[in-house]
């Protein structure tokens, strides 16, 4: 298995450019959660030219809607949600400086082009491993859109959060390339 790369956001241009499809990465530091409804609100604000409730430059958004935290826990189960639902919003956020996205499942051609153009990176975390991944989340705080409940934007502190690079700035796609050797 390849070497494991350790990253701490915000991500620099150089860091993003060095990542390749298939790289295994452990993220430590602050990232933001957001899924369907939060993405819509962020893009609506950008359309109106208004300020966003979270910084985007160099940041990573994790597509997740966690379960409520049990007493004494930072967060409930928190695995990735399917990314294609964010496809209509991601290019706009990448244009505004967002660098990383964590989700699961393939992205549209438009998103892959935007990743190349704006030098972003798309990671996948293990879908269905929400209880396991929650152990790597040390703190969580709602920072916007509390009314959205599970869809609110949370600032979370992660430690050695395991992801794999799917789409890099060179146009590679691990979903397409990974399947080839096993197809019969």
């Amino acid at each position: 298995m390849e070497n494991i790369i350790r990253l701490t956001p915000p991500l620099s241009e150089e860091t993003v450019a060095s990542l390749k499809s298939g790289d295994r990465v452990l993220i430590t530091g602050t990232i933001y959660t957001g899924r369907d409804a939060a993405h819509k609100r962020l893009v609506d604000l950008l359309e109106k030219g208004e300020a966003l409730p979270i910084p985007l430059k160099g940041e990573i958004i994790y597509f997740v809607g966690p379960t409520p935290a049990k007493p004494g826990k930072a967060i409930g189960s928190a695995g990735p949600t399917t990314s294609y639902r964010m496809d209509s919003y991601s290019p706009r956020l990448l244009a505004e400086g967002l660098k990383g996205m964590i989700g699961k499942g393939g992205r549209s051609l438009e998103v892959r082009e935007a990743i190349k153009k704006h030098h972003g990176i798309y990671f996948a975390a293990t879908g269905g491993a929400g209880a396991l991944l929650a152990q790597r989340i040390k703190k969580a705080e709602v920072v916007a859109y509390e009314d959205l409940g599970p869809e609110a934007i949370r600032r979370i502190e992660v430690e050695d959060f395991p992801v794999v690079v799917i789409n890099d700035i060179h146009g590679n796609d691990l979903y397409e390339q990974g399947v080839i050797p096993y197809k019969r």
Partner: protein
Amino acid sequence: MREINISEVVKTVSRLCVDANCNLGADMFRALDRAAAIEESPTGKDGIAQLKENAEIAIRDQVPICQDTGLAVIFAELGQEVRIVGGNLEEAINEGVRQGYLEGYLRKSACHPFTRANTGDNTPAIIHYSLVAGDALKLTVAPKGGGSENMSKVVMLKPADGIAGIKEQVVEWVRQAGGNPCPPTIVGVGIGGNFERSALLAKEALLREVGSVNPDSELQVLEDELMEAINNLGVGPQGLGGRVTSFAVHVKMQPCHIASLPLAINIQCHAARHKEAVL
């Protein structure tokens, strides 16, 4: 007439919601072990190992297997010699969902289709009633996540499409779904009936124990052929390539109209959650 008080229904549904979401069935643990043994891709093996460890953590800490604790799908099989007392059965089931999702720290995932405003308590549940012989009420709670549910469809084939057409549709659909439904998956296939019945057959097919034999030998052959074709796609665990794209294909079938060949495909991720109780 045997009487069943709705308070029993509320309590039971609430308990089953939490039980189903935290405690993966023994059949799925066996399926994960079988998948780990035959998977060739190192990434795939790792993905399967993570899902098993995840399910063990969920049981140990009594936390949800997956953050998507689903819409609560409930099958209520009501014996015709039962009288429900103390209130309305449907309200009792929804109250059980409300309590279970609140007390079990489960995610509330029900929302208004247009505004997306969350209903706040994961109701209304999706309830399928059937009236059966006897004096018992059987309740099955099967929370269903959105990621795998989105990778589902109904298609009205022509009778001329036959079994070959069914196979082509199912395999191509699983290929297109790729990593979206968190493979390895269970593929529920409903054949026949009409438009809505085919979808229900596909959903019911998901409730069968994984690793069990189809009681209809003709359908067992179809399941075996579909499994082979699906696992030859190479989609693999998490869609990252590998031998195991699906743990199982389950087919249910019933007669259909002479003009039709309805086919429904309902995809289920490894979190194949369903728990039942008989009152």
